């Protein structure tokens, strides 16, 4: 059994004392930052990137994966306790989770989110281990045309999920692609859009953009909101354990959510966000037992389902990143960036050239999930304490860590200035209702897309039809067009708006 051998190799790596410690440290740090209101996984990972600079590639990625899960979980905690989802994918958790907390059932809500996530994480890990090798095989059949089409599909997929205007989201992607053009052209070696600033010839650092837009931008956006009275349900979190009836209710929801998330996570542009929305809709449509609490009033299925789904989706969204080197969402884009910093070119070759890293990372995802459950349920009191710290004290600390992170990127204050600039840009995006996540994805994929486009054209002697005459490439492009058509259909369009409205 290859699968077992591979997993055994992985667990061998993941269970070394140092790697367990790094996974643990990552989960703690991720939760710590993720619990801070208004900081999602993207900002959290960007902020904590410097903490892995000094590490080797394998522990660095293991720690980052831990940070990711921690941040994700921290986001659900704030969603349930103070109705402030730390990230888009726990937006739906807040609907029923917060209601449960208001009814004094914060404990069972948190526990069902944690247990559901853990179960989903276990399944997700198995799915990755089973599907990564065959997909890698497929990836070796990909030429530049296929890669280009796949990235186009991924970008379109990301857009379909952005809330708000489709056209604006596509424009944001293109803006991201354009920002990615500030670099030295790989083929001709010509520096572009650098204005003779030497730092710009290497391109803008993606961390500076992420930190500026998601870190500073969100801080400013939070400060400009009128200070709202936040209710934190500290005293009520006593009975943590769900009742037998709760377990009966949540088990099928967890199973459905996990299945849904595992599938949707693999899709380009998919991942945690799509999964949690889809699962909430599914749970709402599924008939529960008679006399159950209605949805929107604190139904435990509305917490367990989406939370399992987003964790499964978060897990399986590693698949396109690990096998094809193509990040399906902004978080994975950061992981790709981190891998590149560590000197690993993400792509199908990683599995064969670096099996220790590959399988170690997969196994440590499971370890990370385990950490979260043993860490978060007992420690929930500490996280709640953190929520009672007023924002005016929290945000200078966030600012400080962001600045240190920016400076240590290249030990150069240039990135700090770029971060500040993008903080302003982020504020403008926020005010103009332009969602920034697609921009970051476009930015990361930009150079890759350009290189593949130009290579494909070079190979076809300038014939654009190469993208539609090669069957794999054509299939991917058709899928991308279909996605746009489907979301533009009036019926789906109103459903989509409804889904995002529900979330608001």
């Amino acid at each position, binding site marked *: 059994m290859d699968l077992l051998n591979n997993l055994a190799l992985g667990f061998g790596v993941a269970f070394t004392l140092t790697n367990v410690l790094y996974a643990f440290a990552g989960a703690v740090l991720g939760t710590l930052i993720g619990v801070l209101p208004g900081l999602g996984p993207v900002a959290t990972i960007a902020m904590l990137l*410097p*903490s892995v*600079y*000094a590490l080797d590639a394998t522990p660095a990625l293991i720690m980052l994966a831990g940070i990711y899960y921690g941040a994700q979980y921290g986001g659900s905690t704030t969603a349930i306790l103070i109705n402030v989802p730390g990230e888009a994918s726990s937006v739906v958790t807040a609907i029923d989770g917060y209601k449960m907390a208001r009814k004094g059932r914060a404990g069972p809500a948190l526990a069902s989110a944690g247990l559901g996530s853990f179960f989903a994480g276990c399944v997700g890990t198995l799915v990755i281990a089973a599907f990564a090798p065959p997909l890698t095989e497929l990836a070796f059949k990909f030429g530049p045309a296929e890669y280009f089409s796949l990235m186009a599909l991924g970008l379109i997929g990301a857009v379909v999920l952005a809330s708000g*205007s489709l*056209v*604006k989201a*596509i*424009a944001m992607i*293109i*803006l991201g*692609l*354009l920002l990615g*053009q500030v670099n030295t*052209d790989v083929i*001709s070696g*010509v520096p*572009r*859009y650098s204005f003779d600033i030497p730092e710009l010839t290497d391109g803008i650092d993606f961390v500076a953009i992420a930190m500026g837009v998601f870190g*500073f931008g969100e801080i*400013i*956006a939070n*400060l*400009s909101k009128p*200070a709202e009275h936040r209710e934190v349900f500290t005293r009520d979190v006593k009975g943590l354990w769900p009742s037998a009836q709760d377990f009966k209710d949540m088990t099928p929801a967890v199973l459905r959510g996990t299945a849904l998330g595992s599938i949707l996570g693999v899709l380009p542009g998919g991942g945690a966000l799509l999964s949690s929305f889809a699962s909430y809709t599914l749970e709402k449509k599924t008939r529960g037992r008679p006399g159950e609490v209605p949805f929107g009033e604190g139904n435990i299925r509305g917490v367990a389902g989406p939370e399992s789904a987003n964790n499964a989706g978060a897990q399986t969204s590693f698949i396109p990143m690990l096998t094809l080197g193509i990040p399906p969402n902004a978080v994975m884009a950061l992981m790709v960036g981190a891998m590149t910093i560590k000197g690993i070119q993400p792509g199908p070759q990683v599995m064969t050239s670096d099996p220790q890293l590959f399988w170690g990372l997969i196994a440590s995802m499971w370890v990370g999930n385990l950490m979260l459950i043993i860490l978060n349920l007992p420690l929930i009191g500490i996280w709640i304490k953190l929520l009672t710290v007023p*924002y*005016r*004290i929290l*945000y*200078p*600390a966030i*600012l*400080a860590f*962001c*600045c*240190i992170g*920016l400076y*240590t990127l290249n030990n150069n*204050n240039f990135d*700090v*200035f770029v*971060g*500040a600039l993008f*903080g*302003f840009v982020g*504020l403008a995006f926020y*005010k*103009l*209702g*332009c969602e920034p996540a697609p921009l970051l994805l476009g930015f990361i994929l930009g150079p890759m*897309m*350009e290189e593949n*486009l*130009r290579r494909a*054209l*070079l190979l076809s*002697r*300038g*014939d*654009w039809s190469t993208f539609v005459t090669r069957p794999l490439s054509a299939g991917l492009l058709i899928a991308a067009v279909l996605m746009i058509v489907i979301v533009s259909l009036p019926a789906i369009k109103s459903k989509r708006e409804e889904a995002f409205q529900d979330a608001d």
Partner: protein
Amino acid sequence: MKIKSQKDFWSGLMFIVIGIVFAVGATNYSFGSSARPGPAYFPFGLGILLALLGGLVLFKALVIEVEGGDPIGYWGFKSAAFVLVAVVLFGIAIPVLGMGLALPLLIIVGSLGSGEFSLKEALISSVVITAFSWLVFVEGLGLTIPVWPTFLGS
């Protein structure tokens, strides 16, 4: 013509301007041909595409009625200015003054943005966060960050 959605109007305009800037900028580089695309090929095409999409957003903003006119709302420039100036100051200060002074500067100026500033709190935060950062980033993770002002010698 009346603007029906403020947000879309300005974002459309932003996309058009940025698209054109990139497309015009691309003319400085060799365009190549489809068979041999040069460095300007991709950014030029994208710039045009962005400007077109911006035009679409702008058009919709002028034509489609939106309830309430979709105002941009209060910008919060004061908070933004304090936060971003604090970051820039940190950037200027760090190579010269080191983390020991640059972080307190960042925290005190940044705290002014909250509208409920208290010097005592800001000072306490400065000490705690600076000490914590030194412990974690310099001692713990071994990152090379200047800690003390350069004029104090190494």
